[in-house]
């Protein structure tokens, strides 16, 4: 709830003389095809200083690539009667499916705590909106478990010194998109940070989608599930019969 409000206020907080960002990404659309093993996004751009002002030495850049948020249920296993089985669970309403942060210096060195929380800079500052409304300590435990899973799965990452700034005006960062990412609309946000505060921000959208054969199969499984199942059965019958016939001929 806090975030949209602050974004509305953002133009008021950023004064007219502050620098502007002109960001771009190497790919506006990533297509997942049969050989997809991940992609590398290049985020680059320029910092424009009004009135020919000299670039500040203190300017830092942070870029964030975020995947579509989704509600998830997370379960915790516990040892019951000698077996590890699912016991407790918690709901989170908005968990980004992907989150990668790259910054020109370690993020907690360049922004203060409040700013980091407001702009969701850093994995620990993500607002996952726990829905259970229970014990905050318990929510925290589940949140840590979820973040740990996402981090080790390659879905969440933080890279200090992942952004290169040259001559104080041009910046670029590389962010790896692993093969297992879910499809949807991703956002690439760029933040210009000075003296612990965000002074300019800009966003670009990136669409990640299955294409070609892969998109066709995935769509068919949902839209024409009966025909899809029938095709799977016919395929297995056909291949089984073909192998049997081929080997019979081979024997003769």
């Amino acid at each position, binding site marked *: 709830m806090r975030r949209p409000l602050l974004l509305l206020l953002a133009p008021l907080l950023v004064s007219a003389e502050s620098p502007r960002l002109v960001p771009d990404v190497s790919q506006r659309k990533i297509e*997942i*095809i*049969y*050989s*997809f*093993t991940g992609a590398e996004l290049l985020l680059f751009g320029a910092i424009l200083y009004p009135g020919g002002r000299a670039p500040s030495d203190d300017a830092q850049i942070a870029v964030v690539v975020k995947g579509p948020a*989704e*509600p*998830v*249920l*997370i*379960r*915790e*296993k516990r*040892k019951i009667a*000698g*077996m*590890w*089985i*699912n016991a407790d*669970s918690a*709901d989170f309403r908005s968990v980004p499916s992907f989150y990668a942060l790259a910054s020109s210096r370690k993020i907690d060195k360049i922004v203060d705590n409040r700013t980091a929380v407001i702009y969701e800079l850093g994995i620990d500052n993500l607002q996952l909106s726990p829905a259970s409304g229970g014990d905050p300590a318990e929510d925290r435990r*589940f949140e840590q*478990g*979820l973040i*740990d*899973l*996402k981090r080790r799965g390659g879905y969440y990452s933080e890279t200090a010194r992942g952004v290169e700034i040259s001559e104080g005006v041009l910046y670029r960062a590389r962010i790896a998109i692993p*093969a*297992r990412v*879910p499809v949807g609309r991703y956002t690439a946000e760029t933040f210009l940070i000075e003296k612990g505060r965000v002074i300019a921000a800009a966003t670009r959208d990136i669409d990640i989608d*299955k294409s070609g*054969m*892969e*998109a066709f*199969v*995935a769509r068919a*499984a*949902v839209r024409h*599930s*009966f025909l*899809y*199942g*029938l*095709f*799977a*059965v016919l*395929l*297995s*019958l056909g*291949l*089984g*019969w*073909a*192998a*049997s016939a081929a*080997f019979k001929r081979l024997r003769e």
Partner: protein
Amino acid sequence: MDLYLPIAGLSVNILVIIGLGGLVGLLSGMFGVGGGFLTTPLMIFYGIPPAVAVASSAPQITGASVSGVLAHGSRGGVDYHMGAVLVAGGALGSLLGGFLFRVLQNVGQIDTVVNVMYVLMLGGIGLVMAREAIHALVTEWRGERPSMQGKRHNPLIAMLPFRWRFYKSGLYISPLAPFLLGFLTGVMTVLMGVGGGFILVPAMIYILGMSARVVVGTSLFQILFVTATTTLIHALTTQAVDLVLTGLLLVGSVTGAQIGARMAQTIKPEYLRLALAFIVLVVAIRMLLGLTWRPPEIFTVQGL
């Protein structure tokens, strides 16, 4: 060589999956079982989501059993009458299985239930098979004649009403018995992603007392239809059948099945059964340990 699986949502190495299919096909051709009890756990171990692994192994078992049914059918080794009763039970069972799958998935216990079922079934059957195969080998080694005098009629089965004649099986029993057996394997097929051959074959011999000549063919006939039904049910309910994954598995398993069937003719059946018992027990023990060891992941995420 990597290939992206559209439903599973990840890239896999083609050769690993074809090899896995080939290995399972080899076993299924050699032992006359579908091999689902191996494919599903191995795919999950490789990183494929459990729901996709279970749903995509069903059509793979269909494919692997086709050639067996064709071969046995042409030799008169399929009791279609008995097979139809089993299939009817299996179809109803897979509907119940589909319902149970949903319920267990919603309460988050599907993995535990499936694992416990695996351990109990595989452990029990592995022990029975190993005992029987070792016994047969020992009697032969002592130079005695193997005694094949099993009990022909189970009293519980004989009590059931409405007896039918199953000519090829040489039985005059109530159709309720094979119907219930089919029903049970149908439930298992959906829940565990197995064909149920490793339950069906011993049950047909020891409980129903079917003539051995038609056991394997009829069991494969039932597996073929029930796994086909299961594929449809999964396609309609869980929507987790991955055609690309299934295709890769099939390519491996249909070839493997042919090679396995050829190899089976040259090896002594007792050794085959002992080897199968060993594999089944190893899988069961691995899964039992998996339940008691602290799992690598305490937390699991499920989309809503």
